[in-house]
């Protein structure tokens, strides 16, 4: 039987993914790399080769030739299309010399990257999935908060979020009402800002950057941008990875694996304002990658 395979490289032609800066992990992975011994990374269904060029800048080759690659916030970012629609997001805290940057590593997860981001914006699961740290029974109420879209950056901003947390961070030793704000910079990048125990009045940043391997598999990278100088990297990473490790079985057991953007497959209430906004925002951008497309024959 004659099989005709499409000539398209990459597993999608969704411009939201092709014309966007997508992360392939920490820039440290390029240590010791060269054109003869490149690092490999998987992105949108293809294997990429990455190395440090003679001028010290990163180089990236995809299945059909060179791809634009940048270093930003200590990570590598690749564009699998011609030109990115938007510049890379800014994270001014990452260049503050008083802060500490900790890469918590990329952890593979078998679900659409969009579900990973949506879960990052959700607080209602804290007492059930992260009992003893980010939440605790019976403190389950999600108080109303505000969500808006910034007209200049087109980023989603959620402010005034608060939740009771028995152990809000690795250095916390008492329960407190944590104050949060969230920001979604890209379909696969979000950041949360929470009160810093290391510098009262300031905020620590946790950035989630998701590397899409394909529509149903991703690597979640996490960057901490903290005011903190007591605990080791290992201790901070341990706390953060425990949180993600608890999210993993939940994420991997959500069905459908891809994110539905049209109701009524999943029910939302007003406590899910950030999730609802995120789905509407994705729909407004014509997102199809990682999105559940109902079949015509579905009941």
């Amino acid at each position: 039987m004659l099989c005709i395979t499409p000539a398209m490289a990459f597993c999608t032609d969704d411009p939201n993914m092709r014309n966007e800066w997508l992360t392939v992990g920490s820039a440290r992975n390029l240590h010791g790399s060269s054109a003869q011994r490149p690092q490999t990374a998987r992105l949108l269904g293809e294997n990429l080769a990455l190395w440090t060029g003679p001028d010290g800048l990163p180089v990236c080759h995809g299945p059909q030739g060179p791809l634009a690659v940048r270093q930003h916030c200590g990570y590598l970012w690749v564009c699998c299309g011609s030109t990115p629609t938007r510049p890379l997001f800014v994270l001014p805290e990452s260049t503050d010399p008083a802060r500490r940057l900790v890469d918590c590593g990329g952890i593979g997860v078998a679900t659409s990257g969009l579900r990973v981001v949506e879960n990052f914006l959700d607080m209602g699961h804290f007492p059930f999935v992260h009992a003893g740290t980010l939440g605790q029974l019976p403190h389950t109420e999600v108080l109303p908060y505000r969500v808006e879209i910034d007209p200049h950056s087109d980023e989603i901003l959620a402010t005034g979020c608060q939740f009771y947390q028995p152990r809000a961070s690795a250095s916390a030793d008492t329960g407190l009402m944590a104050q949060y704000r969230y920001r979604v910079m890209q379909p696969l990048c979000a950041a949360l800002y929470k009160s810093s125990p290391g510098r009262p009045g300031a905020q620590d940043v946790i950035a989630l950057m998701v590397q899409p391997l394909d529509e149903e598999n991703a690597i979640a990278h996490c960057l901490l941008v903290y005011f903190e100088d007591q605990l080791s990297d290992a201790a901070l990473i341990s706390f953060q990875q425990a949180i993600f490790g608890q999210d993993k079985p939940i994420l991997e057991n959500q069905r459908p694996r891809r994110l539905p953007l049209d109701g009524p497959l999943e029910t939302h209430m007003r406590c899910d304002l950030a999730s609802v906004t995120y789905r509407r925002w994705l729909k407004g951008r014509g997102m199809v990658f990682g999105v559940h497309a109902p079949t015509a024959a579905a009941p």
Partner: protein
Amino acid sequence: MRLSLGRIVRDHLSCAYHGWEYAANSGHCVAIPALPALPRSALAGKVCVKTFPVHEAHAMVWVRLDGDATPTAASAVAMLPDAATATAQAQPRFICSLGVYGTAQRLQGELARHGFVQQEACVWHGALAQRPVHALTLQANHGLCFVHLWLAKAAGGGAPAPLFAAVRRLRADIEAAAAAGEGCSA
């Protein structure tokens, strides 16, 4: 989020993700922990999960996926005919649920080769380690079948080891036949 990962809380099924609670039998959502002030009346009937009638018998849980009729003791027991008239000592005794790689067809072919006789669609009678057994076959998913096995009569001893050796031999033969069959397919 799959409710099969949920927990039982106050006799409700609670989802592992956000703790939404669903009542037994009706399947109605009766609590949304993120909105504790929401009265039950506001939820009543709006959020609901599908339920199916169930029955317990012979160490198994039986379910009707067509939801048409509540399985009764009689209909579950009809699968294992001896049980209807048997005394307590002569009741069927559950052996194990055997997970087997293969299709229902291969499975049934091998059961017949092992001397099992088909009673009705999925129910077979035969013997393992010289002891009469009932077998119920079910396809679980694409490559996996179950053979649920009972001793026809619990009483009458005999060490379990030969029985389980015979169970494993049956499984090995089914899977060898399945593998051989695949090798021959076009």
